[in-house]
């Protein structure tokens, strides 16, 4: 079984800063991390490897050369190989051009039985690349996976995934090849072992450019992107904050009254005999 995991290097969200001149995100090598949700995809792939030693896991990323750090982290957790698509032509890509590029790399490095991704990246917050990669490769996509099991092998291989949807769990069955996007419910990602870190330092990360992938400049990077950011603005600050100090008994009473008044005003609570009015779905 060959598995590919798509990995993105993102800025640490809590230290996300903006360039005051341009309003764009400052991307610093110092605060770059592996997209947190990608760690769950890596974990899901490594669990297959735990139970099936013949399985191999390749971590793939697109990004500047320092994205290699993210791939080395994937290697230190236990991935077998890593590849980085890099080059100036790939810069400024939207999700379409990113997925076009990654799918070409998956064809070049594959074939893979399973392609795993994080549900979304915490910087772009679109969650589009996983399904788009599946579409470029004409594969089924199973998104928002929170649990995943395999049974049988070879032609009897059966895969089951539990998707975490808005109002419940949806269980689906499918075969390989397929693309899966994972959410946190899959379980805690493992920490790298010292031996893994050592191996990761020594491993070579394969680099792929536009020529190896046989892509044209028209389908990648900013040029290949069918969407364009035309304006960056500040969010409208519409809230004027009312501050209440509830550290005294009188303050506490006033604060609780205020909360209840707000809930009543928004029709969220009502006296008990009318309580059914408050429990309906939002129109």
């Amino acid at each position, binding site marked *: 079984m060959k598995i590919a995991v798509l990995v993105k290097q993102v800025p640490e969200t809590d230290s996300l800063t903006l360039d005051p001149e341009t309003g764009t995100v400052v991307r610093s090598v110092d605060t770059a991390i592996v997209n947190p949700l990608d760690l769950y995809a890596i974990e899901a792939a490594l669990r297959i490897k735990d139970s099936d030693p013949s399985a191999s896991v390749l971590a793939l990323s697109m990004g500047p050369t320092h994205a290699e750090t993210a791939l080395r982290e994937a290697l230190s957790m236990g991935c077998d190989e890593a590849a980085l698509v890099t080059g100036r032509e790939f810069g400024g890509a939207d999700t379409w051009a990113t997925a*076009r590029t990654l799918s070409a790399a998956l064809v070049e490095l594959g074939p893979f039985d399973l392609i795993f991704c994080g549900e979304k990246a915490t910087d772009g*917050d679109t969650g589009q690349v996983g399904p788009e990669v599946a579409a470029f490769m004409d594969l089924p996509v199973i998104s928002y996976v929170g649990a995943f099991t395999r049974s049988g092998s070879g032609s009897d291989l059966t895969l*089951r995934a539990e998707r975490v949807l808005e109002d*419940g769990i949806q269980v689906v*069955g499918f075969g390989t090849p397929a693309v899966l996007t994972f959410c946190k419910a899959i379980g805690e990602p493992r920490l790298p072992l010292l031996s893994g870190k050592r191996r990761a330092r020594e491993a070579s990360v394969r680099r792929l450019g536009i020529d190896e992938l046989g892509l044209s400049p028209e389908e990648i990077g900013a040029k290949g992107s069918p*969407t364009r950011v035309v304006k960056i603005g500040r969010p409208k600050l519409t809230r004027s*904050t009312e501050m209440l100090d509830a550290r005294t008994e009188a303050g506490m009473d006033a604060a*609780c009254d205020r*909360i209840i008044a707000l*809930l009543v005003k928004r029709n969220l609570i009502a006296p008990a005999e009318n309580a059914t009015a408050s429990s309906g779905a939002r129109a």
Partner: protein
Amino acid sequence: MNEVWILAETKAGKVSSVSFELLSWARSLGSPEKVRVTAVLAGPASDPEELCYRGADAVVHGSDAALSGFSARHLAAYLAALFQRTRPSVLLAAATTTGRTVLPYLAAREGLGLTADCTELSLESEGGELIQTRPAAGGSIMATIRTTRGRPQMATVRPHSRKALDRNTSRPVTVEVLSSTEIGCRAEAADVALLEERPFPSSRGIADARLVIAGGKGFRKKDGFALLFGLTEHTGGEVGASREAVDRGWADYPRQVGLSGRTISPIVYMAFGISGAIQHLAGMQTAETVISINTDPDAPLAAMSDLAIRADLYELIPVLTARLEAYRSVE
């Protein structure tokens, strides 16, 4: 005339309410002389006419179960087949688990641009270009995006970011039932089988809740966090959680609000002991009303609140519970 389509979802055999919000968005793009709205209803539903009552000029009902969203590949193939008949100028879907899976699939296979999770949309009268605005960089900036090539221009729209139009049963009803076999799309659905559906127990999930009462690391322990469930017995609504609370095992992942959890827009969001890291704010800042309770008046979430209360949550919750009981027992 601009042809605007929305992808209507179903829930338990009926049109889901988020579809009505999409119709409201579509109608907001221009007057009926300029914009014609078609709803593509995906999956079995007993009430397709509701879409017309809520603003659709026509409904195309993909009535087979294979279109209900579990196979994004199949539903994307169905929509692509519909494009062969008419190519709309705009296609909107909800930024739900279904919309956020199907539309990217469609975008890639059709070579189209797609903007995720928009909170503002407008249509330029000259040229019919869709101007799409979404929160980016954890919600600290708003990015305005244009689609530079191909039609339809596509966007997913954040649920609860717009009110549905009033139901008007005098509007004409035009429903065309068109299954995936009738339109001749390949049986991609066979690649994925729907085996089982398990609704969350007695819960709508935080995504659809009108009131979300969330807790963070200010609770300091799991037993304390559990007080929130007691509170929702008096208020209704759902319990949400910050990343810290979920990582500590105080709440399940489906309750997590924020960039690595869910983005929600309830009518009221109440936060207990949550300081408001960017990654959390991004998940709740479009709530209509925000109430926060924290010992630290300088917490980032306090500045994002309509009502910020400086209090020890362990002191406030019992008082609030008693007052809610008193209020609700009033004749």
